[in-house]
């Protein structure tokens, strides 16, 4: 049984499908990149996987010990968050709320785990700092540490490098690759097709053509040829 099995899924808003007939599976330990043109429904698909939207039709099955609320999420930043008064520690700790049930306060074990996750993300020295004073890359690390507090099984990342400069972007990709190496399954939305091809084990391309397969299969596919060509063309 796979972590996530998606069958004939349609996603969209208010009953209007943005993307239809999506089929793919995610196995434990995979690194899946979701690529596709703007507006092709990548974020909507991710929100549907997370249970934030209900699918218009089709099925999503969770298996292999993964429960629906065991998925960590790194959303695109909202305007509200950029100016939010919160310390790094407060944000990282909030990752535990999903598993806390009605318990009002954090346990000692949770505090230690939060410290360990901050260490892992290289932000221990920022623990007492304030979120809105951090750089974009630091903020993403804080949100990653929070996601790790919620789960160690799978992380869904929605364009984790948007707005970061090239050096920080490269560091971010290495950090995510490191997590994947440690056994965390990754599903990442990316505009950066080169990075997707470099780091991912599998690619899901959505848009006019839907493709799902391993990275090597993708590079030979027609979906990739058209997309890679336009991406390259767009950059030059």
């Amino acid at each position: 049984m796979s972590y996530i099995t998606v069958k004939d899924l349609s996603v969209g808003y208010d009953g209007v499908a943005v993307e239809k007939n999506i089929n793919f599976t995610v196995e434990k330990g995979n690194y899946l990149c979701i690529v596709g043109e703007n507006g092709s429904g990548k974020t909507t698909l991710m929100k549907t996987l997370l249970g934030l939207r209900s699918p218009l039709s089709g099925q999503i099955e969770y298996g292999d010990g993964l429960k629906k609320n065991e998925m960590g999420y790194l959303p695109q930043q909202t305007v509200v968050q950029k100016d939010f008064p919160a310390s790094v520690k407060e944000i990282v700790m909030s990752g535990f709320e999903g598993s806390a049930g009605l318990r009002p306060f954090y346990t000692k074990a949770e505090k230690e785990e939060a410290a360990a996750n901050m260490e892992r993300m290289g932000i221990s020295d920022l623990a007492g700092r304030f979120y809105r004073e951090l750089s974009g890359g630091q903020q993403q690390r804080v949100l990653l540490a929070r996601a790790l507090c919620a789960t160690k099984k799978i992380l869904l990342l929605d364009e984790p490098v948007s707005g970061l400069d090239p050096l920080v972007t490269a560091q971010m990709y290495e950090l995510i690759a490191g997590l994947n190496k440690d056994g965390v399954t990754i599903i990442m939305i990316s505009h950066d097709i080169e990075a997707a091809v470099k780091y991912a084990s599998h690619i899901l391309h959505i848009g006019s053509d839907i493709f799902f397969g391993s990275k090597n299969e993708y590079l030979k596919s027609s979906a990739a040829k058209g997309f890679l060509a336009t991406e390259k063309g767009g950059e030059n």
Partner: protein
Amino acid sequence: MLFEKLALYMQYPFVRYALIVGVLIALCSSLLGVTLVLKRFSFIGDGLSHVAFGAMAVATVAGLSNDMLIIMPITVLSAILLLKNGQNARIKGDAAIAMISVGALAFGYLLMNLFSTSSNVSGDVCSTLFGSTSILTLTKEEVALCIILSIVVLLIFILFYNKIFAVTFDENFAKATGVKADGYNLLIAVTIAVIIVLAMNLVGSLLISALIIFPSLSAMRIFKSFKSVTVCSALLSVFCAFFGIIISIVAGTPVGSTIVAMDAAVFAVCYIIGIIKY
């Protein structure tokens, strides 16, 4: 001289009641205010207070002895509806609130004019809108009710503090990881409705949102973590309510507007501190 006068006033139970109730309401409204401001829901406080005004008019016209029975459920219900609407579509929610709040205001005034038994309609309306002397005429039972509800609000806030933070900072993440975010939003909406109904006695329905948003905005000028903003906002609000009531008693000014003027002055001070500090 001034202190003697104060000491004299303090001997009267109605002054002590007003201070107790005023401080408690200010405390409760400032706590939830941080969340409302950060969630960009400040306008909900404003809309709800107008709904409460309309409900109060209905209760007055219906001749109920205890108007809480009508005001509380109507306001709570509106809070739930407004919050739900506000989540689905922010812009539509904005318009909906503007519509509901002015609608309720007009409807309330109309009712009071058509069916009023009192000889001084505009006086009644004015005191409901801007806060009356009713804070100085509280009965023991009203004070007890206010104390109990305030304790409930405080307990809810403390017990759910971490969850309120999680839902305020990132609702999608909270939902995805299994926090019952909709439930907590509902809790926040209901609590804010209760606070608004309580606060109507203190500052009147037009000025309630000031009590909710000023302290948290002031605190956000100076502090940068959620906890320090919350604590500072509560302290500022209590400070303004306490001294606002004292000043209004000593100087004979209207209670509600004096408190709000204090809040505004404190905001100005915090704003300047914020500019100097950063």
